[in-house]
């Protein structure tokens, strides 16, 4: 059952990612944004299979909710309609694909060549919000506060950047 679900979610994730990057049917950035949502939902399913229930919820809330609304908002604001097919340089495309393929095969070779983990397989790990929050507020309190300041800086920066005349 779990294996079938893994295959299903992995397929959803990868097909969504392919359609974000290279959609053969449409050059519309809105289509890419929608397929990005599909990818995020697949990833959320993979997180559930990994027992990371809190992360799955965060993935849907933050990525499929907030980040995607931002993307669509900017897409509609800029109103890019003359997104026609331009001719791509075949040499560049081939070289890029070759390089990325080499990197991927190297990484996969490393994964399967690595020694096995010393931990004897996954124990049932309860990773709901409870243990995660306890760890976050006990061991990782300083990074948590730093991240909150980072978010504040981002808010102020976005407001200033979006003003009509940047001096």
């Amino acid at each position, binding site marked *: 059952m779990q294996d079938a679900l893994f295959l299903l979610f*992995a397929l959803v*994730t990868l097909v969504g990612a392919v359609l*974000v990057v290279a959609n053969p049917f449409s050059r519309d950035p809105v289509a890419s944004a929608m397929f990005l949502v599909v990818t995020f939902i697949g990833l959320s399913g993979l997180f559930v299979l990994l027992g990371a229930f809190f992360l799955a919820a965060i993935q849907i809330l933050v990525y499929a909710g907030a980040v995607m609304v931002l993307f669509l908002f900017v897409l509609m604001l800029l109103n890019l309609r003359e997104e026609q097919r331009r001719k791509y340089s075949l040499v560049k495309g081939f070289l890029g694909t070759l390089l*990325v393929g080499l990197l991927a095969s190297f990484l996969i070779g490393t994964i399967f060549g690595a020694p096995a983990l010393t931990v004897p397989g996954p124990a049932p790990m309860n990773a709901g919000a409870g243990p995660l929050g306890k760890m976050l507020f006990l061991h990782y309190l300083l990074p948590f506060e730093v*991240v909150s300041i980072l978010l504040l800086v981002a808010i102020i920066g976005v407001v200033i950047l979006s003003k009509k005349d940047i001096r």
Partner: protein
Amino acid sequence: MIGLNHYLVISVLLFSLGLLGVLLRRNLLIVYMSLELMLNAANLALAAFSKYNQQLDGQILVFFIVTVAAAEVAVGLALMVALFRLRQTVRVDELNAMKL
């Protein structure tokens, strides 16, 4: 039986697709979406390691990455809007004012 390696392979493939998008696409917004794909691939690898090492630290790191990515998207899109006001384009091959 699905193990750690399968999750890592999915993560590598997702990262490669994101890298391909950054290298090949010319629309700045789609380059940004590909960056998000790469960040999510890293998140998947961290969550998988967290489960198979039976430690929660990986999930905490994913939490921080999600937060930083959200801030980064907000600032990046604001920059893009400001750039579009100035130059009326978001294509990376037309934004070459700093090229020699």
